[in-house]
């Protein structure tokens, strides 16, 4: 019976099973992993992917009830949180997974940065990674606006205001994103569309490109040990590592959701500006800088930082050629992390 079914299926989908199995085995199961990856520090690259998976699943469930209209958005989120069976858990997982995804990406970047995993020939994959980080933050920003409470409404207003400062095209992009002069029903529809359609698709494509790059180059080995580091197969050990991470994460996020479930805040009121408008915590450092310098300069500063981060592998290469003895990436990396943490904590303390 089984054979018959197989035969029936193979006739209709005539692919070379043996070849496919070999390819799968080669590019997936037998992928050589450098021995240093057995250390947990180095084995968390899949964490953002796992969290993204959680968010796709919970996100789809949230769209069953969420209504992207200014009059109904807040109430639909309230309904999900307070009335839908397990709704608070689904929403909590979605919200906490987004927070942890940002943290996981930052940790992954720290690892790649300090091990110079971006060095030749993997520069392009670093750029893909930066793009993925940017898309993730945009997903977070648009997702935060979905709740349509006072903080998220005003964060969306102030956040999008920055776009205006981009020379020449700023105002046009702002109008395009907001669908008018102010954050309105048009903005919510556009943000919703971006959040559940365009951005996740883009991120998914970038994830594929990122993994394909890794598979093409192989996982980067430690600098100086490129030739003599031992390797082991992706399956089963590293695969099980990933499964353990996934199981740990779902437990950890569930616990966080129970202990610190996301609240609802006050419904958005375009007529009342809250005393303190603040973005989500991952933008605190940027927000802090913007408070100390004029908006225009701040926006340029941020753009400069983004460009520097994107092209860091090339910048690093040039700097190393000039000062071969100095570990510039240690200095730059440490300074960036310390400043980022300082401004993030500072924002928390002043509020």
């Amino acid at each position, binding site marked *: 019976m089984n054979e018959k079914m197989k035969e029936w299926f193979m006739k209709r989908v005539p692919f070379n099973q043996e070849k496919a199995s070999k390819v799968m085995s080669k590019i997936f199961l037998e992928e050589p992993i450098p021995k240093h990856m057995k250390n947990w*520090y*180095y084995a968390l690259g899949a964490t953002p992917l796992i969290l993204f998976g959680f968010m796709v699943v919970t996100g789809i469930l949230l769209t069953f009830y969420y209504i992207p209209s200014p009059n109904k958005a807040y109430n639909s989120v309230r309904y999900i949180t307070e009335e839908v069976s397990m709704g608070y858990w689904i929403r909590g997982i979605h*919200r*906490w997974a987004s*927070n*942890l995804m*940002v*943290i996981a990406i*930052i*940790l992954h970047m*720290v*690892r790649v940065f*300090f*091990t110079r995993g971006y060095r030749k020939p993997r520069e392009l994959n670093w750029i893909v990674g930066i793009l993925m980080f940017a898309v993730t933050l945009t997903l977070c920003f648009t997702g935060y606006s979905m709740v349509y409470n006072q*903080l998220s409404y005003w964060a969306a207003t102030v956040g999008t205001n920055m776009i205006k400062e981009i020379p020449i095209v700023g105002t046009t992009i702002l109008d395009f994103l907001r669908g008018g002069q102010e954050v309105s029903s048009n903005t919510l529809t556009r943000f919703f569309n971006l959040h559940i359609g365009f951005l996740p698709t883009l991120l998914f494509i970038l994830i594929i490109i990122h993994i394909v790059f890794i598979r093409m180059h192989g996982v980067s080995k*430690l*600098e*100086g*040990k490129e030739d003599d580091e031992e390797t082991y197969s992706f399956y089963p050990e590293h695969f099980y590592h990933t499964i353990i991470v996934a199981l740990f994460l779902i437990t950890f996020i569930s616990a*966080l959701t129970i202990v*610190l*479930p*996301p*609240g*609802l*805040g*006050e*419904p958005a009121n375009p*007529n*009342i500006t*809250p*005393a*303190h408008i603040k973005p*989500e*915590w991952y933008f*605190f450092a940027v927000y802090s800088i913007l408070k100390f310098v004029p908006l225009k300069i701040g926006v340029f500063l941020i753009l400069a930082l983004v460009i520097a981060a994107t092209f860091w592998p090339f910048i690093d290469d040039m700097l190393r050629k000039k000062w071969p003895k100095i*570990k510039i990436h*240690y200095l730059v*990396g*440490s300074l960036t*992390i310390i400043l980022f*943490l300082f401004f*993030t*904590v500072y924002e*928390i303390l002043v*509020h």
Partner: protein
Amino acid sequence: MSENNNSLSTQKLLVGIFSILLLIILIIVAAVEMKQTRKPELVVDVSGVNKKCVDCHIQKGVAVKAIDSWKQSKHAQQNISCIDCHTAKKGDFDAFYCPESDFLVARHPTPNDCAECHEQQVREFSESKHAHQFWLIKNADRAVFENPISTRNGCEQCHNIGNLWPDGSVGECDACHAKHTFSKAVARQPETCGECHIGPDHPQIEMYLESKHGNIFRSQEKKLDLNYSSKDNKPIPIDVPVCTTCHMDGNETQPMTHNVSARLGWESQAAWSFRTVWLDEKLGNWEMKRSRMESVCKSCHAPDFIETYFLTADLVNLQYNEIRRVFVDWNKKLNKKGLTHTLIGKDGKPYSDPTLVGWDEVPEYKMYYAWHHEGRRFRMGAEMMAADYTQWHGIWEIQDDLVTMLTWAAEHGDKEAKKWVESIDPIKFAPYALYDIPGNAWGINAKSNTLPYVYKTYPDYWERIKSNVKAAYDNNLLSEKQWLAWLKRFENKEHYLGTKYNVDSTFKIYTDRDDLDTKAFKKQAVEFKLPGNPFWIW
């Protein structure tokens, strides 16, 4: 090789330290932020002098909750802090130094302080009857009856809304905008008005809750956000009116006002109902004020309903005056005959006014009740859709007062009163002229108007009523529009009274049912005799 190993160790150390540092700090940051999402109140900047006030009050445990309330206020959001309202100059009536400090502060921020920012609201309020100290002007000092200590936390607590401050300003803004949140939502909550508009003399909160408005409000209360701005001629954002919706809030037709007298057509609280002349030069005459109220009603109701409803309520006010006239005439007569007495003060001058207050003799206080308690309920109930207050707490008790007064007069030898008491004519309960309107605002009842004794007994009933309504119109107590609306009903009264419609077959179902009820109660109660004898034998 060793250099390579050293480099790898440094690398591992950096990755390890920064990963753990980032992980711990960022998860704590995310957790703190997540906790913030559950906090309804906004965090407020407290700095400068304000910080000193707040710190000291918290440290000494003085009015700490007031600070918490202030933190929730819009004032706090806009950086309007302690000293902005409690500002004082040397010599101010309420200036004092905060203990153990050199801060000169005002104990009582007055409307003058509020007017620094809310000039329009304070002005409108000062032009309203809320600010009018009528009780100091109109009546004799009631503290002989209700001794001073009782009035401190009694009368004065409510009438404080029109407090005349030593700085010349009038009012007490926090009577409605409870301090220190000064919340619009609290001010709009019907119970805020009900703090004073309650009790036997003007139970508006009870009337409101009895009305359809109040009932719908209660059922939707949890969903309503009363913290809205009523400026800019925007539509009313809630589906059911609270007190302020009709009396203060704006809609598409008019701006919000703090002058609660701007939309009232009657002085229904007065001893005699009269068309308001309050600030006519600014607010327009009573018709203009009434039209403002009607414009609010029109947000929800059909014009025809509003017109009939108010016309009926207006006729109730006019009817009250005719009843009041009987009380006043009788009290004057009894006073003149020496059966009741005016109070005389130590200075030899009359202290009480027999037509307003007497307090110590039955006809006097029955007249007082018929005005100050039941008379107000009768009129205000009719204006506020509170049927029970028009009926049982209104006209029924007024008539009870009337019977008691006349019975007392008869017992004390007044011949006319004796004749009235001994009369067996049912019409003796209407010793005054009547007003009426064919039908009501709610619809046509095809049977109820076949019942009233006066309809069946007096063929000229409606002609008499017409002449009274016409007289009221001629005296500018009803508008031309109202007179025409009344006439329209009069000319089609068989329709509006429902008498032209034959519904006997339907009505018979109920008369048959009623026969069964009558038989049942006769059998079960009236004719049911117990075998054991009573213990007291008549």
